[in-house]
């Protein structure tokens, strides 16, 4: 098992930060100081040796105590078999979590899916791009950035990248805790994450449908919207998806978008209600544009995940949302199912320890593992780009 856990890529930045080989100039690579709090014991690396393999092995032994039989047969078969390793040359795979409502469990999922991916042998970078405030470090048990007044003045300060001790996982975040919607620092952090040489980038985009979040969501290999089984969250989810769809259809400088915008401007009475009606109207005046818009609609394939389910109807909700989206907008949304409500999420957050490390045997950890494997399968095929 130790051999199989070895990081699969050679160009991983050294954990001690001395060889930031692939990272752009000026990027700060830091290791987290040994956490002084009680959360430290499991996450604190043993004295960091030159190569990572033994560390990972030790950590795995420690962590896997309760699920040895669960992981052991699967890890070796996954490593090295993933499609993106077989020379598709497209850079890292991006999995974006967005939308829904604040408090829907997005950050918990990003942190723990990232941890699971790293445990499955991937080189993972998490990017905290939530404009409402950074939180991912808390879910991982890492230290927050406490901006000094001086730091606040230096808007050109590059994003900070920290390695999680003992894991093949890095966290990339802008230095400023207070960020506006159009903050260039978020874009910088995204660029740094993309240039990090990781296998997989897991992005926390927050709930705001701002241009950066929408574009990143649309470009990701897999865009997941996390929502809750209650009306306010449903409304926000549809609002985010609508914003993303309209951005894809209408915001470009290309001909189909320009023609569509002209048509919609001329539609004073607001007759065109859905993408389908827009396409029907376009077909009369500009068949090529209609075709292009139709292709864009069909290519929009967001994934829907309902968190904190309490009953069967809740667990079925994701499928219901996708079926409604197909009927209303003709998009190919895909249901990722439901994750049951579980106190261990809050409990592990209070202890500032990652859930899958603190409660590896919990139902929630197993749900997250299932989700992670499903996501890996999804991004394995390029056609599912949202």
């Amino acid at each position: 098992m130790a051999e199989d856990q070895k990081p699969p890529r050679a160009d991983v930045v050294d954990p001690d930060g001395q060889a930031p080989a692939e990272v752009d100039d000026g990027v700060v690579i830091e290791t987290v100081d040994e956490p002084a709090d009680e959360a430290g014991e499991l996450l604190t690396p043993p004295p960091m040796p030159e190569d990572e393999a033994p560390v990972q092995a030790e950590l795995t032994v420690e962590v896997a105590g309760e699920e040895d039989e669960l992981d052991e047969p699967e890890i070796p078969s996954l490593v090295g078999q993933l499609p993106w390793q077989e020379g598709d040359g497209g850079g890292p795979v991006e999995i974006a979590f967005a939308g829904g409502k604040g408090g829907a469990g997005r950050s918990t999922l990003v942190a723990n899916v990232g941890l699971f991916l790293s445990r499955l042998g991937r080189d993972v970078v998490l990017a905290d791009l939530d404009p409402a405030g950074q939180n991912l470090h808390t879910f991982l048990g890492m230290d927050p950035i406490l901006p000094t007044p001086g730091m606040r003045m230096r808007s050109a300060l590059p994003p900070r990248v920290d390695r999680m001790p003992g894991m093949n996982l890095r966290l990339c975040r802008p230095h400023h805790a207070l960020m506006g919607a159009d903050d260039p620092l978020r874009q910088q952090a995204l660029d740094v994450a993309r240039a990090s040489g990781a296998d997989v980038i897991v992005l926390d985009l927050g709930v705001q449908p701002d241009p950066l979040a929408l574009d990143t969501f649309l470009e990701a290999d897999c865009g997941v919207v996390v929502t809750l089984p209650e009306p306010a969250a449903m409304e926000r989810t549809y609002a985010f998806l609508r914003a993303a769809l309209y951005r894809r259809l209408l915001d470009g400088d290309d001909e189909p978008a320009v023609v569509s915008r002209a048509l919609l401007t001329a539609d004073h009475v607001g007759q065109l209600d859905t993408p389908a009606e827009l396409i029907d109207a376009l077909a009369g005046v500009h068949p090529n544009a209609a075709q292009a818009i139709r292709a864009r609609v069909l290519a929009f394939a967001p994934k829907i995940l309902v968190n904190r389910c309490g009953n069967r109807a809740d667990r079925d909700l994701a499928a219901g949302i996708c079926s409604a989206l197909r009927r209303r907008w003709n998009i190919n949304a895909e249901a990722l199912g439901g994750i049951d409500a579980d106190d261990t999420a809050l409990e592990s957050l209070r202890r500032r320890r990652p859930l899958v490390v603190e409660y590896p045997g919990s139902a929630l950890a197993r749900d997250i593992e299932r989700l992670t494997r499903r996501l890996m399968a999804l991004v394995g095929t390029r056609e599912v780009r949202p």
Partner: protein
Amino acid sequence: MSAPINLYEELELDPGATEEDIRRAFKRLSRRFDPGGLVMYGLYRTPEALRLLARLKEAYNTLMDPEQRRRYDRSLFPKGHPSLRRADERVASRPPPAPRELPRDPLEAIGWPEDARLGGPTLTKVRSMAGIPLEEIAERTKISMFTLRCLESEDYGDLPAKVYLRGFLKQIARMLRLDPERLVRDYLHEYDAWVAEKARRKPW
């Protein structure tokens, strides 16, 4: 491009779906797309949601009527759909012989007087004329064999409560291409008379 497409897609079903599949799908989807439900909130306005429900209902009614469904299938897949052929084979492999097609007006075919009341004997006659065994009605309508027998022989004492009778009679009428309203009216008229008579004789 505008959404569904055909009645099977409307109910998210395969064209080989059984009546039970259709019933389940309709139940599930009308709950899912309830205008006041979670799924619709923030996506559909109420009138549009109601239109969606109406389309589901229409698809359900068409596909649950064997004759209408046959005609619809023929128009949808002139050469026969693979899964439809499979469904035909499934039906054909059942022990009882395939029922003869019902004539357009079964009452006329059995020579039932136009103004005579419809009742249990009518059902028996139409059924035997078309060669539909009671078992098939029981399977399609999910009404028990015992109740069906009592309905046909008009053993009012063994029938379930009146509220159930109405639904049962409608279902059977639809299967046998009788006028559901007329059957319910005539049958329950006799039934009510029997209840009143029983009460008169044994008021306690």
